[in-house]
């Protein structure tokens, strides 16, 4: 089986979110970057498990980004994977990113493309579905369990109001979330090994974006908490009813 895992670079979950250039750009100064948690904890780790079970599995990682994305993709390689591919372009919108990934996926003839359920910066949850459509493959979104046996795919996925068990056959695109695998910490052997793994840089295909971000905005600051004494919880109920009018 040949697997491609999509890796995105995102600000750390605790990063302060601020903007520069008239609110047109994310203020990246001093921000710690991480592998998008859904890509790392679920998609990548599950792919590594497949390779551990069957060493003949080929596992490639792909990211769309400039040279500054390399530390992140090396970090991912420290967890596992045979080689990484960086598509050398700044990401624009989901459509351009998905088009770049689809071009690499088509070229490489992968059986399985895994993504995280969304990135924690743009929260679009779009890349998996777009890649699947570009490759004309089935897309199983929001998987909580992924099993593959001899080309047969069985996935439990979250649907509106519950869950569904689906079966299909490779090739397929799957977006992964909690339940698919457990987070791993890279060990020293992995970190050292990652340095010598191939990191291929490929040039992007020509594609126009469909959307662009005009500006960012921070939510208005909260007015501050109104504390109610612990011995008067009925006062809280009154405030919620009469002041906040939430019930």
């Amino acid at each position: 089986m040949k697997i491609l895992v999509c890796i995105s670079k995102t600000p750390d979950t605790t990063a302060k979110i601020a903007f520069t250039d008239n609110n047109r750009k994310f203020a990246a100064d001093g921000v710690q970057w991480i592998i998008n948690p859904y890509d790392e904890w679920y998609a990548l780790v599950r792919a590594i498990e497949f390779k551990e079970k069957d060493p003949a599995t080929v596992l490639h990682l792909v990211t769309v980004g400039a040279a500054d994305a390399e530390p992140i993709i090396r970090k991912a390689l420290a967890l596992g994977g045979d080689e990484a591919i960086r598509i050398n372009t700044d990401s624009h919108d989901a459509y351009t990113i998905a088009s770049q990934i689809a071009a690499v996926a088509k070229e490489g003839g992968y059986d399985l493309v895994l993504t995280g359920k969304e990135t924690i910066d743009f929260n679009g949850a779009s890349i998996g579905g777009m890649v699947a459509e570009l490759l004309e493959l089935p897309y199983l979104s929001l998987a909580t369990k992924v099993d593959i046996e001899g080309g047969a795919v069985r996935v439990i996925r979250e649907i509106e109001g519950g869950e569904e068990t689906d079966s299909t056959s490779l090739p397929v695109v799957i977006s992964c979330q909690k339940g698919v695998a457990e987070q791993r910490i890279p060990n020293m052997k992995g970190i050292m090994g990652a340095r010598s793994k191939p990191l291929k840089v490929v040039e992007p295909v020509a594609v126009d974006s469909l959307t662009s971000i005009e500006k960012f905005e921070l939510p208005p600051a909260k007015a501050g908490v109104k504390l109610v004494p612990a011995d008067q919880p009925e006062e809280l109920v009154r405030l919620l009813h009469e002041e906040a009018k939430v019930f």
Partner: protein
Amino acid sequence: MVLIFIDQSERKIKKTSFEAITYGVKLAAQLNTTAAGLVLGQTDDDLSSLGKYGLTKIQQVDDAALNDMDAQVYTTVIAEAFRNAGADTLVMSANLTGKAIAPRLSVRLKAGLVTGAVSLPDTGNGFVVKKAVFSGKAFAHVAVQTPQRIVTVSPNAIRAESGSGEAQVEKITVAVPAAKVKVESRDVLKGEVSLADAEIVVSGGRGLKGPENWGMIEELAKLLHGATACSRPVADAHWRPHHEHVGQTGGAIAPNLYIAVGISGAIQHLAGVNRSKTIVVINKDPEAPFFKAADYGIVGDAFEVMPKIIEAVKKLKQ
């Protein structure tokens, strides 16, 4: 023309679709054009009654093969209906169905996609949609550059507005391709308010000490016709099912009221709930970071405070 995809769950139309209809109807009025609804598969609901949300026309592809939601099949059918209707804008909920199909449709129709809109687009100069980014810590104004566009509406961001009226239902025929994915089984919570749909959510954290103490969380949620949720450590310890976990790595919700009991409010938890309109925090620790993000709070022991809150709500509801 604005085409509104009306999603079903177990042959029933849910609240997130009423919100999408309201959004689509208002958007059509703003653009001086018409709106129509699109329903795929068979339904147990009376579609003409959706006229009360301002829709005058609904198209239905009444085909049992569409009773299972297959992303690839739905994409083909919706794209075909969209083209046949001569629509330029497709609106649907950013619920889990929307997440599965909207990206595919964006590629199929070459239509710019904005996921999780929180308000109506600014159409004064172009088509610019506001959506939450950075896990609710900021908003982005996204311009769609294509003549055709797709907007998915964040659950609970737009209130469904209903009046009176009846929609005309037209059955249309669209070729339905064979699905490559087989649905083996489906497990849908019946009769409970789903977390994404809930206007009120009562959530518990490690401060509740164990799963046996969730009775008061469930009771308050039930009294308020809300849903229950939990923090990550609670889901990790299997005190509560995974789908109740809200936060950075769980689900993101935006109810009108979020009541957090015994949750300290780590930044990762806030990322999943920070778009709630009103946040109430009940915690023993006055230094709990959650109080900084809260609108109302009680510094106190949940085991003493919660029963009194439940009593007060019961009295109010009498």
